[in-house]
């Protein structure tokens, strides 16, 4: 039961990384892939009417963490208090920018919200990356000492830890590049005209850079947490995830050159899924790793809700999960194909 809920939590986060990821990545490229206001309108139309649906994976993932692993929530959220509010406020700014940009037909209005939107996406991609970095690196957890992490200390991964150090910053940079590449793949599939051409060109550069950065980050991870790699050997799920990563890598390196937009796009989705999957498979069962001593780590077993609470949740969760795709299908079928800025009813967003 606990293993199932660990898997569900990972699934929610993978869905957010893949689906929300292309929105954040495309948004981070707002000024690079789209050079004038008409093109930016096209970019936002490509992110389209389902950006909130994509972002719900994050919010619902928070709900899953709450019901299944309340101790993890209760320790990590206060520990990262100010960083989390930075995320929340930036999410607010991003949502507002996306929704109100198209409401007023004025160049100054749009320029302002375009800038806010792009900046918010870049910052959020970095913050999500730093969050992954913190989970992998661990935090100085001890028994009965409330944890609170400073933003940064001496940028080292040993000794007094901060949220940002050379390792978490590297993961953040990799995440930003990876999401930008993913966003560019999405735009190459959904956009038209100049945005489409630029996005296609960007995938040729960004994916190889992402792969190189992944090698760097993997080497760094081996230095920070070597046992994660040795552990993979006897975990078949980790092999599958690694195979997915390898397959995705092949697709994102060959797809852009061959002009195969769909191959690049799906390759990117598989690449991200495989990476997060292999991280989860090697981290399991630890969710919050203690850098002080293994006995203080919060695992899926000692951090979960009672079995009866988990059982109740496993009755309704699959129903809700399946239903969410029904709505997606109902709306998504109307927005198939490439985005067109003229086909919106009220104001072309």
């Amino acid at each position, binding site marked *: 039961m606990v293993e199932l809920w660990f898997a569900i939590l990972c699934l929610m986060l993978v869905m957010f990384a893949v689906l929300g990821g292309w929105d954040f990545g495309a948004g981070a490229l707002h000024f690079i892939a789209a050079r004038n206001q008409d093109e930016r309108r096209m970019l936002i139309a490509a992110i389209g009417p389902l950006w909130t649906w994509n972002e719900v994976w994050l919010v619902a993932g928070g709900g899953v963490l*709450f019901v299944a692993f309340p101790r993890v929530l209760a320790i990590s959220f206060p520990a990262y208090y100010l960083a989390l509010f930075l995320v929340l406020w930036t999410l607010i700014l991003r949502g507002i920018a996306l929704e109100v940009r198209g409401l007023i*037909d004025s160049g100054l209005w749009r320029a302002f919200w375009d800038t806010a939107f792009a900046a918010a996406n870049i910052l959020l991609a970095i913050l999500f990356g730093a969050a992954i970095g913190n989970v992998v690196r661990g935090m100085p957890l001890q028994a009965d000492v409330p944890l609170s992490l400073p933003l940064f200390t001496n940028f080292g991964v040993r000794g007094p830890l901060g949220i940002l150090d050379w390792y978490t910053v590297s993961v953040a940079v990799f995440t930003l590049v990876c999401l930008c590449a993913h966003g560019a793949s999405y735009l190459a599939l959904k956009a038209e005209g100049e945005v489409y051409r630029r996005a296609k060109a960007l995938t040729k550069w960004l994916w190889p850079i992402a792969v190189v950065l992944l090698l760097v980050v993997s080497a760094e991870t081996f230095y920070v947490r070597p046992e994660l790699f040795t552990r993979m050997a006897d975990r078949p799920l980790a092999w599958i995830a690694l195979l997915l990563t390898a397959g995705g890598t092949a697709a994102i390196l060959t797809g852009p050159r061959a002009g195969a937009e769909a191959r690049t796009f799906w390759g990117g989705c598989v690449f991200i899924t495989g990476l997060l999957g292999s991280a989860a498979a090697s981290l399991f069962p630890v969710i919050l790793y203690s850098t002080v001593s293994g006995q203080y780590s919060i695992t899926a077993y000692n951090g979960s809700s009672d079995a009866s609470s988990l059982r109740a949740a496993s009755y309704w969760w699959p129903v809700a999960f399946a239903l969410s795709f029904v709505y*997606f299908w109902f709306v998504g079928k109307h927005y198939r194909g490439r985005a067109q800025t003229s086909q919106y009813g009220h104001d072309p967003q």
Partner: protein
Amino acid sequence: MTDDAAFWHRIQFAFTIVYHYLFPQLTMGLAWFLVAWKWLHLRTGDPRYGDAARLWTRIFGINFAVGVVTGIPMEFQFGTNWSSFSKYAGGVIGQSLAMEGMFSFFFESAFIGAMVWGEKRLGPRNHFLATLGVALGSWLSGYFILVTNAFMQAPSGYAFAADGSLRLASLSDFLLNRWALIEFCHNQCAAIVTGAFAIAALGAFYVLRGDNGSQGRLFLKWGAAVGLVASAIVAFPTGDAQAKMVARLQPQALAAMEGRFQSGPIAEITLIGQPDVQKRQLDNPIRVPGMLSFLAFGTFHSDVPGLGAFPEDTWPTNIELLYYGFHVMAGLGTLFILLMALANLQQIRGRLESSRRLLWILMLAFPFPFIANTAGWVTAELGRQPWLVYGLFRTRDGYSAAVSSGDTLFTLIGFAGLYFVVGLLYVFLVGREVLHGASPGLEHA
């Protein structure tokens, strides 16, 4: 110092939830007007309904967006600011909060974009379905939140786990908590009152201004008719049932709501007065004898306990605010019924559009349902004190010990600043739509 920390955590949650709920109450109230207008437009083809739905959908879209972005921090604050509570009750209240995300947010978020931007793409039938989807999703979302609140007010369906925290014992007892069902009826009708008053206000504005008259008349008619029915249901039977439930399950809260310190039969209801907690009395009261006994327990002779009957450490912590919150809510609710009855009377006599004074009142009345809803929630949440989960877990034990009061104050000020800007933006954008009015057809702007 620890009390100080708890205080700032409470203020931050109170501020962010009160601000957030200004938007969903209008969303939930407007949603069914939109469904009705879309349906009538689909069936009759009458363009007035299509235009009305289109104008209010634009306002709805802005309102919904602000509701979404101010709602995300609410869920996360359980973890950041109330981690001890989350650890204690997460296995239970996490259910309804996760269900809200899984069932309602996916539902609403899939349809909201299509509803606001996709009238042309979806075609009339599917656009109606998208509107219906958003309405259902927003009400479902409201239900899950009220289930969460109902568990804090009158816990049901739980048991204790080995480590002393709460675990879920019965999903159906938890989801079909009697408190949740009654609170849902009461609260959702109150949301419809907010929507009806907003619609009537815009109708009055258009009629008074003298242009856009056909839209104005439609809004006045619908706003007044629905507003009267909904205001009446908020008072009876839903408000009445809510009061009887509070009398039975939270007798201290009822005593504090009425500023009642002494117990006894033929309990009087207080219309006006000021509680003086120091002296254990109500200053300058105007009362109706026996009414409280009747409203709370059904007979004029029922014994209604005062606060003196309970140990002081189970008294609500802010009796004055609780008293005023309840009286503001109940007083405004009564005035809403009177105002809407008068509006409907004039409507039936065919004189509503020429009663300029009444139109002015209707136009300026729309903020008051927001105030009444807020005051009602202040009553519910202060009445629950000093408990976070009634009878089980105290509020002062629930906050995050790892977060300093300075950090909480910082984020509170941050929210105040950010929400001020968001509020300005909202007023500006909705104001534009209102002044712009309903543009006929699909092809405008």
